[in-house]
């Protein structure tokens, strides 16, 4: 009965692998859109399928679509268009190695989750491992990218992973918590977009390696 949640959680995990294999900033943003759409689908499906029929989860689904599928990616694209950007190698290792290291992260999160007591049920276990791996892969994505916009996308993926973990482990957070989280994310993206703009004005580039020169 819950197997479509399994399929969705695996798809979310795989979308973060695709993000890891991307090369261009435009495709980071596109992949983030797809991942958020999958999360919205998960929330919506959960709202419909749970016994009580939670209406607030449907509202959350709409909110995710408005915020994370439309608003935040558009904002990122606007930031990207306003900074001057030269296409060059953006990542520290080559892509197959990054993807294989992300595989190792999935295995790691499996071992770390399996030691937690209390979630012995097999179904919940697989979903939680997948969404924990999304968090770790998001962090790894932030490390592996040099450009500032890539790091914003990494932050957003971490946030996505946290949200999905909460969704799968509790089957729907209280509505007020959801709202708080969304407003936090929106504020963070606005501030970070502004900072990217400032970095690009000061250093003529959004490569964060150049910030090291401030040490003097």
């Amino acid at each position, binding site marked *: 009965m819950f197997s479509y949640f399994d399929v969705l959680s695996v798809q979310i995990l795989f979308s973060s692998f695709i993000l890891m294999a991307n090369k261009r900033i435009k495709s980071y943003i596109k992949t983030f859109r797809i991942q958020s759409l999958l999360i919205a689908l998960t929330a919506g499906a959960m709202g419909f399928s749970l016994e009580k029929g939670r209406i607030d989860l449907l509202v959350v689904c709409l909110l995710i679509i408005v915020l994370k599928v439309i608003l935040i990616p558009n904002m990122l694209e606007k930031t990207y268009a306003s900074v001057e950007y030269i296409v060059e190698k953006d990542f520290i290792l080559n892509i197959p190695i990054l993807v294989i290291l992300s595989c190792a992260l999935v*295995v790691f999160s499996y071992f770390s989750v399996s030691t937690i007591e209390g979630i012995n049920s097999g179904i919940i276990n*697989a979903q939680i491992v997948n969404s924990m791996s999304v968090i770790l892969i998001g962090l790894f994505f932030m490390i592996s990218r040099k450009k500032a916009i890539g790091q914003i996308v990494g932050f957003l993926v971490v946030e996505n992973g946290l949200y999905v973990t909460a969704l799968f482990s509790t089957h729907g957070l209280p509505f007020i918590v959801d709202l708080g989280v969304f407003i936090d994310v929106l504020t963070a993206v606005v501030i970070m977009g502004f900072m990217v703009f400032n970095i690009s004005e000061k250093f003529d580039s959004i490569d964060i390696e150049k910030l090291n020169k401030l040490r003097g």
Partner: protein
Amino acid sequence: MQYAAYVLIQLLVIIMLAPLLDGIIRKIKAFSQKRTGIPLLQVYYDLLKLLRKTSVVSEESTWVYKIAPYIVFSTSIAAALLVPVTTKIMPGTLPGDIILLISILGLGRFFTMLAALDTASMFGGMGSSREAMVSILIEPSVLVSLFMVGLISKSTSLPQIMQAMKGIGAPLTYPVFVMIFLAFLIIIIAESSRIPVDDPSTHLELTMVHEAMMLEYSGRHLAIMELGAMIKQLVLITLLVNILIPHDQLIAVTGIGALVVSIFIYVAKVITVTIIIAIAEVCTVKLRFFSIPNLATLSFILLFLGFLQYFILGGSNV
């Protein structure tokens, strides 16, 4: 007698259907570019015309060049006979079918590469070296995907695998099979030299892979080579649809009526997958050659995640 009739029907279905898929893909591509495109059956006419022409053979070439088209064609046919297309009846009842299937396809590819090297033309050498690289990159995914299905159904024989898959019900509702489906789509695209990996519609470009190996062939030899490649593509699509989307008539065959129904369902499934491949071809551009490892990694990762979901996490025990 009945047995031989089934074999013949299966063979006929495969040979007649294979060029149609190319026609469909070209039609969809033309439609996406707002062209009318060539007629759907043009591929058949081209093949027939090529078959009637004599082939020009270079004086410098050896017997490998002349024998290669026949080997490519016969390996494709042998592979087609190993895969149950419409009924449970499988002509070559040998153990270890999956491994045999992969190695037969590998033999065909090996002779294509040899023949391209044989004429010592520059394009042929480049084409075969690239083909070798692509096949090395994609072979692990083919093996792992088929073995994973084999592990789940506890058999390497294709009819038994299909039986087990039918027992599961609708395999595509489970994460592991969704992952195998997506990975196999990438495999089909790479093996039949479709667009993200290789552009089938280019001639005399530095980026071509499969066309570069065919460049020296003409007339009858070319027709046989191309038909062999199309049949190979159809065999892979057949594997995908018959393993992951099994239908009832595939397993229990009772008489002519079921056979006809089975053929119709089979053709419908194959055309659906072809349309998916065509859409993927329309939506993507050809990758830089050194980005192909990334694509191969993605297909391998899909399989890895599927394996993890099924065997280690045991999310939904089938």
